[in-house]
């Protein structure tokens, strides 16, 4: 199911971008009365297209390293070759061709770049002053019309930390969880740009951030309006989906049969995208019982939840989540900060995985994103004490291919497979050890961090001319 969704989503992304990156300006709502624009072409689905371009990189061969390929494979003493921004070969031994930069990785490890499916970098940037608080449009419980990308400040110093300390190469920026439907997410390459568009992951589908539980009912209940209860949360959700289905029907009809174009509604555009499988649902939800209700609601309304985020009680319904094909993106050890996080346990991810449910790590935090490898190490250790064995090569799927799938970018990144983006981290040791840090990080084959080269420490505009500029961080 996820795979199907992913392919649909990627296809949609490719439709929206021609080979030279110019957006297709499809027939808009002012098309002639009787002409049908064609399915999905009634309006522009990509009005803020990615302008990301990989930076130049050298053909590079890393030899003699422990490789975790991100899909569960491992090679000890192996080699990785990438060229022109793409993985060329991964194997035990690869001959160095002329002009290839060879890095002897003795004692070091290579992995695909870390992918964080849940970040607020850019929309809650550092410094965290009120003027930068752009992650929650807390003025109504349904704000499916807002897009997180319109809040992303590309100068957030946090992007640099995530790259140099965390080896993060791809990340999804989500709206906050104050609202039931908080708006669209955006997936970024972790490469500084002057504009948000310059960081935008080419072809990545949008996500819709939804939230259940305490936050929406607290925020709106305290304003004396609906929802003020969990039942209110679901009622508002369902009423909104009913509207979305009607909107979807009208636009489907218009796009295939022509006639008078229905009026546009930005919130409904987003929900229509979900109903059509073009936009993936990322649902903030803590409690097991609520997740079960949301999955039934999704079935009733004809959409799919791609992943529950936070999902601290997923372990209680691992079998149910597996049966519905819904992923869980979780922390390793957060607990107790509010009532719905009270039952968190360190084995959550491991139990999900053991039961065959899709699971991954996530950060939701500008500090945590710098140590997602260590967060997974915690899970491995908790699992071991609970009698569940997790190999390092399997555990890296929680940092790579699983989040890539949840973001709909697994065909192009998330593992060290030939033809994929050369998003690669060379670690100075076992990445599940507390004593290990990134040595080098490549994004699309371009070397964007090298611990030995101070000139390859990114410094955002904000930090330029400030105390500590260009320091190790």
């Amino acid at each position, binding site marked *: 199911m996820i795979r199907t969704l992913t392919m649909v989503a990627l296809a949609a992304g490719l439709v929206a971008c021609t080979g030279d990156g110019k957006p297709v300006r499809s027939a808009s709502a002012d098309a002639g009365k009787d002409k049908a624009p064609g399915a999905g072409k009634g309006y522009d689905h990509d009005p803020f297209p990615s302008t990301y371009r990989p930076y130049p990189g050298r053909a590079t061969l890393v030899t003699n390293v422990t490789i975790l390929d991100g899909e569960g494979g491992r090679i000890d003493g192996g080699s990785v070759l990438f060229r022109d921004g793409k993985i060329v070969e991964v194997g035990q031994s690869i001959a160095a061709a002329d002009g290839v930069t060879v890095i002897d990785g003795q004692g070091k490890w290579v992995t695909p770049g870390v992918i964080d499916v849940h970040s607020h970098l850019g929309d809650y940037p*550092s410094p965290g002053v009120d003027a930068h608080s752009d992650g929650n449009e807390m003025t109504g419980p349904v704000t499916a019309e807002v897009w997180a990308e319109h809040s992303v400040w590309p100068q957030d110093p946090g992007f640099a930390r995530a790259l140099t*300390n965390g080896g993060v190469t791809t990340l999804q920026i989500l709206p906050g969880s104050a609202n039931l439907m908080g708006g669209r997410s955006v997936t970024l390459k972790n490469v500084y740009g002057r504009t948000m568009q310059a960081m935008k992951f080419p072809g990545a589908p949008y996500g819709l951030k939804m939230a259940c539980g305490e936050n929406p009912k607290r925020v709106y209940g305290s304003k004396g309006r609906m929802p003020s209860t969990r039942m209110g949360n679901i009622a508002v959700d369902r009423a909104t989906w009913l509207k979305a289905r009607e909107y979807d029907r009208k636009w489907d009809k218009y796009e295939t049969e022509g006639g008078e174009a229905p009026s546009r509604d930005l919130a409904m555009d987003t929900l229509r995208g979900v109903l059509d499988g073009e936009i993936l649902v990322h649902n903030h939800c803590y409690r097991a019982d609520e997740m079960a209700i949301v999955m039934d609601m999704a079935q009733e309304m004809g959409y799919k939840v791609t992943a529950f985020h936070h999902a601290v009680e997923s372990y209680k319904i691992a079998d149910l989540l597996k049966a519905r094909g819904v992923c869980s993106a979780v922390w390793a050890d957060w607990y107790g900060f509010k009532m719905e996080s009270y*039952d968190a346990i*360190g084995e959550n991810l491991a139990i999900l995985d053991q039961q065959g449910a899709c699971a991954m790590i996530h950060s939701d935090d500008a500090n945590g994103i710098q140590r997602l490898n260590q967060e997974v190490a915690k899970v491995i250790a908790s699992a071991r004490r609970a009698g569940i064995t997790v190999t390092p090569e399997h555990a890296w799927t929680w940092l790579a291919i699983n989040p890539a799938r949840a973001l709909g970018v697994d065909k192009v990144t998330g593992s060290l497979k030939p033809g994929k983006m050369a998003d690669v981290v060379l670690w100075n040791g076992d990445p599940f050890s*507390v*004593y290990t840090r990134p040595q080098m990080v490549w994004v699309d084959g371009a070397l964007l961090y090298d611990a030995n080269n101070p000139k390859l420490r990114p410094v955002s505009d904000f930090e330029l001319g400030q105390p*500590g500029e260009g*320091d190790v961080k």
Partner: protein
Amino acid sequence: MKRLFLAVLLGSATLAAPAMAQDVTITNAKLVLGDGSAPIEGGTVVVRGGRVVSAGRGGAAAGGRTIDAGGRYVTPGLVAGFTRLGIVEVDGVSTTNDASARESVFNAGLDIASAVNPRATPIAINRTDGITRAIVAPDNGGSIFAGQGAVIDLGNDMDAVTRGQAFQFMEWGEAGARAAGGSRPAAMAMFRNALFEAQAYARNPASFADRGKEALLTRADAQALQKVLTGQVPLLIHVERASDILGVLALKREFAGLKPVLVGASEGWTVAAQIAAANVPVLASALSDLPASFEQLAATQSNIGRMKAAGVVVGIGMIGDDEARQARLVRQYAGNLVALSKVPGASGLDWGAAFATISSLPARTIGMDGEIGSLAPGRRGDVVIWDGDPLEIGSAPTQLFIDGVEQPLTNRQTRLRDRYLNPAEQGLPKAYQR
């Protein structure tokens, strides 16, 4: 005064040493003393009457129970510097959160010891991860002064407070400015005025006019600040910006008795020489490396390493970092400081020094290193046997003693885990499975 204080302390120590304290000898240990030294292979530690009798290489069993550590790490129990452990159950549930009291007329006089609940779930959860003692501070409300902090143990009994009224805590910098009415000068005025009032109180307690709600300082607050003025207790000060840190050092020169301890201190490394020269210790945030505010622009994970290199006494504190629940992260943070020693241009710590930042050094910042945080004769019998390197993420205690009493290593989370290792229900609802 000090003697009286010590007498009180020893008195409470006697009370705190429970009847269940065992005489224990742990042999064949990779022994970590906690004083900054490297681990000792083949070490032995002897605990008798709830106190460490000896710790070092070799040595034979000394009666009582003997445990062969099998070459595994044996360390002092960890001391979590600057936490809010035991005073919060669920942060977001205000009735369970005693950290701050915005509506109270009192501030410096508030005594956090009265809020400590040994049965708060974070106590057992953090104990399971090797924390045996914690420095617990109140959070501030309507004043720069938050109140009097405590040092607690994380034992499975109702007698948690090791030392009550152990220090005063104060917000400075941005948070202090906010609490004082909107600016740093307002915080300074509040601070000076409060100390002057406390001095007036000290000169003649009987005639001190307590004007109740109208007062700028109540009698209870004046009493508490008197202990700060005389240096009877240290004053923990949350401060991040370099210029604010220098301001604190100037206050120390102005008020001779003051014993400041810096908390947070993100920009400490930029004025490390001055901090060291002033002999002011620090409970620093270990991994803060973002300009999270304008007072943390120079934040870097190398902060502790650089301050230590400059001669500052610095332990790890957890202010603003889930300190009511996640004090256990200090272990991971100390390990990361070791990792930095391999990063070009960064300043890390060697293993022994890193371990000290979560054992003897936090204790030393508040003058309690003679009691807790290391394995030396006379110290509290807080000892942990680990299944691996205690600074490595995957490691956990296999046995843990507080005051010589072996502690349970289960908690609410381990119970939930056991119930749901197989999530499907079997025969009866989950509610019957325990």
